């Protein structure tokens, strides 16, 4: 063979090499798969190590178990039972008695019933939002619980310097969701209810936030923890009693329970913005209402009643919970005592009475601090 290059293509060797080539391809793919598996496994190991780092583990414990989600949900279940029992007693009834001891399992029976019910979505509803909003409502109401100072040292979840503002930012979203839910339900009753919820918030929010100016001013802090810590010498309820009352009333108006239950006025507009919610969606909105009441009770304890300050022989969280139960009792008491107000009356009362009263108490306490030097010494204000 001269004058040419012979391509030495040995066909039979090529044929014999095919299995080797296939093996290489399979090994290459296996390498990629193994890499992905190891990568995932490393992530799992990393997460595991992070979770069981002592600080992280205890933070997770607090966020999920004790002052966190599980505790709040159990407290929610207790609050529903307590409210129904108290309503029963106030109306000369017994409240729930049949499920469990003293009707304690009634809520579980109700929840099973409601969850087992068919979820009907109206034709006119915006389906996606209709499914999404009740869950979002409950999440938004449960989130601010992480800023509640259950104790000074250890048993709290988060302490931001602006947690008071942040809590109100979350709570302002609640009537927005109510309005949206009323809108996307595609029913006139729910739309009216949604606008009434917005009206309630419009009426109640300004007095409520003005009422919290008092504690924030006296503590010199916008953090719930800072405000609670500022009350070690004297509770703000002693200095700001009118603000406590206005905050309570404005909080009830903001939640929209009696006497401010125009948004869900069941004898006027069938069930307000919750008319079209059935089954699990209704359960979520129902729980959200109670969770919001609990949140406001906890805020009242932290802002006015000294937070964890109390009996020195008890842990701070226990003191907080005792005061929380008492506050919640008054919440239920007030909300089961009066008849329903019209929407214009709600705005009228909130703006004409609550707002000046809240401002009055703030101004009075400012003068008191200036002219009573003994009082200023009790507060961590600095200066003289």
């Amino acid at each position, binding site marked *: 063979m001269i004058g040419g290059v012979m391509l030495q293509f040995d066909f039979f060797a090529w044929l014999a090499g095919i299995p080797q080539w296939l093996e290489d391809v399979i090994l290459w793919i296996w390498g990629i798969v193994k890499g992905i598996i190891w990568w995932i496994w490393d992530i799992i190991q990393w997460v595991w190590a992070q979770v069981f780092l002592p600080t992280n583990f205890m933070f997770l414990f607090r966020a999920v178990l004790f002052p966190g989600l599980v505790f709040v949900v159990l407290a929610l279940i207790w609050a529903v039972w307590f409210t129904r029992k108290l309503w029963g*007693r*106030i109306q*000369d*009834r*017994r409240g729930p008695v049949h499920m469990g001891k003293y009707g304690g399992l009634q809520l579980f029976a109700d929840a099973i019933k409601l969850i087992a019910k068919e979820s009907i979505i109206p034709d006119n509803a915006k389906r996606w939002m209709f499914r999404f909003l009740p869950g979002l409502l409950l999440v938004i109401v449960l989130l601010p619980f992480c800023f509640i100072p259950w104790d000074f040292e250890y048993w709290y979840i988060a302490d931001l310097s602006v947690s008071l503002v942040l809590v109100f930012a979350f709570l302002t979203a609640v009537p927005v969701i109510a309005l949206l839910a009323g809108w996307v339900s595609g029913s006139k009753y729910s739309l009216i209810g949604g606008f009434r919820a917005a009206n309630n918030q419009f009426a109640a929010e300004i007095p409520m936030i003005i009422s919290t100016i008092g504690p924030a001013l006296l503590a010199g802090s916008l953090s719930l923890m800072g405000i609670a810590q500022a009350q070690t010498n004297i509770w703000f309820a002693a200095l700001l009693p009118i603000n406590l009352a206005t905050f309570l009333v404005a909080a009830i108006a903001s939640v929209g329970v009696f006497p401010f239950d125009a948004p869900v006025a069941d004898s006027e507009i069938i069930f307000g913005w919750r008319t079209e919610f059935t089954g699990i969606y209704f359960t979520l909105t129902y729980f959200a209402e109670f969770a919001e009441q609990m949140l406001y009770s906890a805020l009242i304890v932290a802002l006015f009643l000294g937070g964890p300050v109390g009996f020195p022989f008890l842990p701070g969280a226990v003191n907080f919970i005792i005061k929380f139960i008492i506050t919640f009792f008054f919440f239920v*008491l007030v909300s*089961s*005592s009066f008849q329903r107000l019209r929407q214009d009356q709600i705005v009228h009362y909130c703006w004409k*009475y609550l707002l000046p009263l809240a401002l009055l108490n703030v101004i009075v306490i400012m003068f008191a601090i200036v002219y009573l030097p003994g009082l200023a010494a009790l507060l961590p204000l600095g200066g003289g």
Partner: protein
Amino acid sequence: MGFFSVLGDCFQILKHTFRQVFMRPFTYFFPFEDRIYPERTRGRHIHVRQNCTACAQCVRACPVVAIRIDKEDKMYEKDAALYFDYTRCIFCGLCVQACRFDALFHTPVVDLSEGDREDLIFGPDKIETLDRDPLEWRGRRFR
């Protein structure tokens, strides 16, 4: 003084509801617990067989034919067994009025619910005694 009087009213209402929380409920735990009925309530009957003379005046007086008499069923010398049909009885009390021998009385027991229509016909075993199986609820026995 509108504002302060309204505030005072609010506190009156709150005081009332607060006291209400600690009051005993009006409602009864019905099948297990009931109010005390007056002594002369015309509830279910009781038949005292020792005094009965089998005169059948109660059967004659009954406007709705709720009473049946069985003169063969004798426990003493001249008594009879009475069968009260409480699906028919209107608790008018004429049978008790008609009885001249103090053998038939009303009792203040008014809850006569049964699971079955037939059980509402009170035969001699049920009409002669007030005893019945006590109701049980969570380990507690009532009546």
